């Protein structure tokens, strides 16, 4: 067991304990709605909102929640914010809401969010829980944008709807289909693994990292 500084709380979720790429949490949205960068961004924004609000609320009311019903309470809080996010997306970003469909409602069961509440917000101050949530949210966003960018560029030939290649580009349709999601996630995790191995090997040889 060790203690962390506030800046570590923030940084941790972005890279070293990235929720999607390292902890392998929240894979359902990461696979399902990352066929374009726009969808990835909308999903990240909704998840970010839910994560931050839930973390702040749960860390501030944690004294009043008996531990026997804490999981039910957390889910209740998360589900409430998801419903709010769902209604607000539908009102202010109807096109994105239509694209994301049922996956907005499924943020409730994103284990990344519940995981942060159980592991962090329920035993830390509001300030540090917010830092942790923002860091984790940014990490989730980075992972989804990486996947969305990769899949949109190869699968449609555009990035953020901007055409990148000439009209002769033949899109790899498989990349925007579910199979492409698994392939992309696999390759990104592979790349991260290779990167980590190299870093460890360098450190073992006593070179500057």
């Amino acid at each position: 067991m060790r203690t962390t500084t506030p800046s570590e709380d923030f940084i941790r979720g972005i890279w070293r304990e990235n929720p999607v790429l390292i902890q392998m949490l929240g894979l359902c949205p990461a696979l399902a709605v990352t066929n374009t960068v726009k969808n990835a961004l909308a999903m990240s924004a909704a998840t970010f909102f839910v994560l931050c609000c839930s973390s702040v609320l749960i860390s501030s009311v944690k004294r009043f929640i008996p531990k026997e019903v804490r999981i039910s309470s957390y889910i209740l809080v998360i589900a409430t914010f998801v419903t709010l996010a769902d209604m607000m997306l539908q009102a202010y970003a109807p096109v994105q809401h239509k694209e994301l469909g049922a996956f907005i409602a499924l943020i409730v069961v994103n284990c990344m969010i519940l995981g942060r509440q159980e592991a962090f917000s329920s035993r830390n101050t509001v300030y540090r829980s917010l830092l942790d949530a923002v860091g984790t949210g940014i990490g989730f966003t980075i992972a989804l944008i990486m996947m969305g960018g990769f899949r949109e560029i190869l699968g449609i030939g555009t990035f953020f709807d901007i055409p990148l290649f000439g009209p002769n580009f033949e899109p790899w349709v498989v990349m925007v289909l579910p199979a492409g999601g698994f392939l992309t996630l696999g390759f990104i995790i592979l790349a991260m693994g290779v990167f980590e191995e190299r870093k460890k090997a360098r450190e073992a040889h006593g070179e500057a990292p």
Partner: protein
Amino acid sequence: MKERPESDAIEVQVVDTLQPDSGDGAPVEEQVSTLRLVATLAVAGALAGLLIVLVNLHTKPIIDEYKAEQLKLAIYEVLPGVSRYRTLYQVDGALSAEVPAGAKATDFRQAYVGYDDAGQMKGVAVSRGESGFQDIVQVIFGFEPDSGVLLGMKVLDSKETPGLGDKIFKDQDFVDQFFARPQTPLAAIKAGSGKGAPGEIDAITGATISSKVVVSIINNGIAEWRPILEKGIPEEAQ
């Protein structure tokens, strides 16, 4: 690859980030009564419900307005040259301008009758859904009830395969065929194999099923609605 958390990462995380000295965070340890458990959840549930109702009051009008606006745009799109339309309801196999007392308007199939500036009836728009390659494809289309000529078509909702089946609304060449006043019933044919017969629609290569669904929706829809429309369209109340 070191200590990568497994699927039960919640447990792993507890150990990883436990803060023994974080002050006010320690959960209460003593046994609590059942009443308090129920009360906590009840209060939390009531607050959550209240919050959702408040936000819903705010967002519902915006969402409804957007949906109505989308429907209006779609009706004007599939009935070119129409300057206004009115909504009629299918009640007991005939058209009616009003729904029976006490019934909800959304429980009845709706037809939108479009008129031009001179008050002349130009066509009727109806929406219909049928199973596509993935899920129900919902299409709204306009036609002339007397001649059976198709005026226009718009896909309202579809989950067809991105890059292939979604060409039924993304491929402008395909969509344009439905605005070229083809005579119904339509026939989906392999692209380029047309003999110039009326009602031929070039199917999209690689999306034959999706193309055929659109054609089938229009054919079945017109077959279903024409007998009803022939019974007469109720006069407008002056």
